């Protein structure tokens, strides 16, 4: 996997993971979607979040191998989480949409 492509891909997978995990919490669910999440939705969001984190680690290992992959994983997760945390209070809706918009804008150029 091309390293630059992997960088963007894992960043957005990590971003999606953290968005799901944050939406599973009352405070952030209220911020973005209003109201509290039901227990079913909460469970699904949590499982999705953790699954995406695992996926991100696997993607890193594919791109960088198991020595550097985890380092890239930690770094990209930190960057993604920082982006989410400081975007949420200012533009909660946009922060949620970014999970779709970001990959659409950043990833296709690699296939051209």
């Amino acid at each position: 996997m091309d390293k630059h492509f992997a960088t963007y891909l894992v960043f957005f997978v990590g971003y999606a993971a953290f968005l799901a995990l944050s939406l599973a919490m009352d405070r952030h669910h209220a911020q973005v979607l209003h109201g509290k999440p039901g227990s079913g939705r909460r469970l699904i969001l949590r499982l999705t979040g953790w699954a995406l984190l695992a996926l991100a680690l696997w993607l890193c290992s594919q791109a960088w191998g198991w020595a550097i992959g985890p380092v890239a994983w930690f770094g990209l997760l930190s960057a993604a989480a920082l982006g989410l945390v400081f975007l949420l209070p200012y533009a909660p809706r946009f922060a949620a949409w970014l999970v779709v918009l970001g990959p659409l804008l950043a990833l296709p150029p690699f296939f051209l």
Partner: protein
Amino acid sequence: MKQRFRQSMSWLHTWGGLWFTWILFAIFLTGTLGVFDDPISHWMREQGKIGDIKPLTAEQRAESVKVAQHYLAGKAPRAEFWGIGLPDEAQAALRVFWREQEESPFEQRLLDPANGRESGASQRDTEGGHHFVHMHFELHAGTAGIWIVGAATVAMLVALVSGIVVHKKIFTDFFTFRPRKGQRSWLDGHNALGVLTLPFLFMISYTGLIIFWALYMPAGIMARHDGDEESFFAALNEGPAPRPMQHIDALLHELSPLMLRGEAAIEREASFVVVEHVGDRSASVRIFGRFDPDAESDRLVGRSSGNALFDAINGETIDVQKPNTVRGGNVLAIQRTMNALHFVRFGGYPMKWLYFICGMAGTAMLATGAILFMVKRRKKSADEFGTATPRVYRLIEVLNVTAIAGLSLACIAYFWINRLLPLDIADRAVREIQLFFILWLLTLLHAGLRPPMRAWIEQLAVSAALCLGLPLINLLTTGDWLFSALARGDSETAGVELTAMVFGLIFMAILRHLRQRQPNQQNREKSLATAIEGA
């Protein structure tokens, strides 16, 4: 019990953090900038404009070494150390270094590789990005600086651990940042920045200590190896035995054929030649291979460019280590991995950017912590120092401004100094760094003379202007500018200027925030004054 533990950790985090925060901020900021020391040097030496320097042929390299040997033999025929840096894409000049004795400082000259004449002011003489790296690990203060940085790094580890204990709701507040809430926002920001980059912060602090492990913690070598570091490291690295001085005069072998033999032995181009104990029977010469970033970016351990060691008198081969081979046992491999992790010697630009982002987050975490300390106490004095409290607070405020806004200002000003200082001035590279420190000192003076909020605003405003104006000053002084750099695909020059502009915008955003706050604060101060008068 748990409550008391948290209380004492809170005390430790507050005060241990505070007294080290300024120095840690400097270490983090310059270290983060140092991630891009090569692009910064590239920008400062105007290498983008020079265009590609042709790589040397083997004969040219041999000729360069000959020229350097001739020059050094004239300058320092009995030096403890000679270093010859062969020209490469980044540096067209031949670099020579020498040191008379082990304790004396290194001398350095740039030579024309064709005729060995000292290069004058033909190019911008600068330390470039290395200035930030040196600031980062030794504060430009040699061994004393390394010790200070080490102590601060231990304080950082302690602050991280105690910070985790103090943070009551790491998981509930994991994604929480509440802006425009005064003290609450500063705490949220401090927590989020620290928690989200915690793996990086632990890694970078611990590996930073490990780089200088033998200096910081020599007890093991002293007790178990009689303190003989040279033979200890020879055994550890499974290298050749050290060659102590014999104090017998001997004539140095021609270096250029040894360089060619070294290149053949490691099957790689030479980049650097080191001679130790020049003029003594024990003299040795080591030929280092050129670093190949493509071959080595995929691995953490066993990345080496190879080197060959010869007896510098009779030319016998002492030792050859081929590129990318591993020597020593598993523990040494762990230590080397830790070094590689600290220096981001892997993964290329994507990884460097991740380090840069995480490093800046850490830098911002330190700044928010220092500011939070004063925000809390501006609202209500905690009266920790009795009658001296206001004076101590004032000192902390001044140091906050100087360490955070002042150093940021000095760092971006260093780029301007590089462009504005005349080219033909003597010791130009040293002057640049002196001016950097003088400016930083001036920000201290300024912070001491102005009211705190004004000092913050003014220093940040200057920093913002310097950041945003960087492409302009480059255009005015060198005729090169952002768009031509972009057009010729010089991403290093363009990257430096674009990144500086992003920081300019960040400073502007902070300024806007401070200006919005200020009227409120003035009102509050006014109402406080009337209240006092009324009473």
